[in-house]
């Protein structure tokens, strides 16, 4: 039973995905979810920490050649000096999840007999 519910949910998110792909950017009314999405911070941290000082030129389709640093800032909107807050948030997410886990293990009781 639970497999079917899971597949339905995945299909539903795919529909949202298709509708957002039409816009090519995250719609404004969904941006708040970007900021609470933990994986977004992972991607931000990865890209910024690896490419924040790379000055190699790359070919960008439809535009002039740009440095990787500029492309990252222009296409993804990742600022090179935002690594500190990203690091803090990346530590905060596990702490938050662990706290919710501890709290709900303590308070909620799903004991069956």
């Amino acid at each position, binding site marked *: *039973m639970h497999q079917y519910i899971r597949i339905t949910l995945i299909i539903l998110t795919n529909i949202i995905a298709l509708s957002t792909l039409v816009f090519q950017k995250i719609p404004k009314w969904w941006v708040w979810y970007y900021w609470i999405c933990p994986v977004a911070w*992972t991607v931000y941290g990865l890209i910024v920490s690896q490419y924040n000082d790379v000055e190699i030129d*790359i070919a960008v389709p439809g535009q002039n050649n740009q440095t990787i640093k500029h492309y990252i800032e222009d296409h993804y909107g990742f600022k090179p000096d935002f690594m500190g807050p990203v690091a803090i948030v990346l530590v905060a997410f596990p702490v938050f*999840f662990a706290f919710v886990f*501890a709290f709900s293990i303590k308070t909620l009781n799903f004991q069956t007999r």
Partner: protein
Amino acid sequence: MLLQLFLLSYFCRGSTSDLNTIIGALYGSIFFVGVNNCQTVQPVVAVERTVFYRERAAGMYSALPYAIAQVKGCIFLNNYKIFCILYLLLIMLALSFRLQVVSEIPYVFVQTIYFAFIVYAMVSFEWKVAKVLWFFFVSFFSFLYFTYYGMMTVSITPNHQVASILGAAFYGLFNLFSGFFIPRPVSTVPIWLLCINI
């Protein structure tokens, strides 16, 4: 298996497609390992919760925090604030997780070590100490929050089947809104310009 999946990601940096391939391979592998962590931790935590219920019913679980409180009380007696904070944290840890949360850390750590070295060597990053450490940091905490997310879903649902449904509901959203497939709107560039450039 992970190695085979992402072996193709060895590219140099020539164009945006190379860059996007590297970022995509990295992102995909971290997401894949994270979801795996999340799914595999759920049944384990569900079983351990049953054990926890039994021990709580038997009144066994208060011995550990009591012991910790005794020891820490002697050490931190002269520094009251730190003592209070540490005491509360330790009580939280020992009482309600049964040190479960802490016990996940070594597993994730070892996993990150081999993950980081295999992946970092393959994706043509620079061999600088700071960058390797940043990569290690980001992937470690990503795996950690995926694991804890899995544990959290178990703790707020009655059994691990429901937990896996709740978890899967958010994988899709995490994936979508991670800003890789669909970048966030950049306020400095007008939207219509970006549309033309496609």
